[in-house]
């Protein structure tokens, strides 16, 4: 299945957001996720199915002003 993860087109097998994070090697803690512009809380990543073409954001803490 093709997804856009942080604006990069990639091919993945994961069927859920939680699985995607594992597949890509993101830690469960310390990142926040959104699918197609909607926030997905950590505890809902398991229940968050992914569909071909979904746009996923995985964000980490960063310096800010």
């Amino acid at each position, binding site marked *: 299945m093709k997804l856009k993860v942080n604006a990069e087109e990639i091919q993945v097998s994961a069927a859920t957001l939680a699985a995607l994070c594992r597949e890509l090697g993101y830690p469960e803690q310390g990142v926040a996720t959104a699918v197609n512009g909607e926030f997905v809380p950590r505890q809902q990543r398991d229940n968050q199915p992914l569909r071909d073409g979904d746009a996923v954001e995985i964000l980490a*803490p960063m*310096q800010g*002003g």
Partner: protein
Amino acid sequence: MLNVYDTVLNSRLFLGTAQYPSPEQLRAAVERSQAEVVTVSLRREAAGEGSGQRFWQLIQSLGVRVLPNTAGCHTVQEAVTTAHMAREVFATRWVKLEVIGDDATLQPDVFGLVEAARILSEDGFQVFPYTTEDLVVAERLLAAGCRVLMPWGAPIGTGRGLNNVYGLRQLRAHFPEIPLVVDAGIGSPSHAAQALELGYDAVLLNTAVSKAGDPPAMAEAFAQAVNAGRLAYEAGLMEAHDLAAPSTPEFGTPFSPWSGHA
């Protein structure tokens, strides 16, 4: 002392964490600034890179509150989603709400700002809106649930100081009870002191410290300037006059033809 969203703060300086030459400089700057609130953000990161975690651990080790921003968001939707993501990662209801309306000036889109502020306030966020000196926008933000306002001094990163002192005075006079923080545009400690002398409750700045020759030293300079400005505001500043008036008593001036004592 400053009270924002029922949190009491001793320091009236909020410091940004971006653009420091090194993590050590950032740490030293935050320490010497005596800031109790620092701004942070969320960004995309490659899996396994971990720089975000290292940054977050550094911040947590500083014992300060974090104020996550929504920098770079141009729509209500982006800002709202980013705020939710930040609340989860940083475990705080506070959010510095930025909805950018123009990339040249990085100025707020006051329409999107008010809308996003309303949505987030209803969602239980405590919103610190980055806004302009516009009084009417300010009224809308308060109606939307904000209990702090953060008008700009000048566009982000310009260091121009207080671009519209008149407008900022009007805003302060119009909302005597609301905590007002000058956010953005502060370039030097004298700008920060001026903001506090005008009765502003605090300043938020980043570039003026992180891009200084010696960021930690500049951070301390701002800490002193903010204290100076507040202390002066409370102590009651003299009014400026057009006409000169001698400080040394005229009475009893030597060599004057008039007798100098009763």
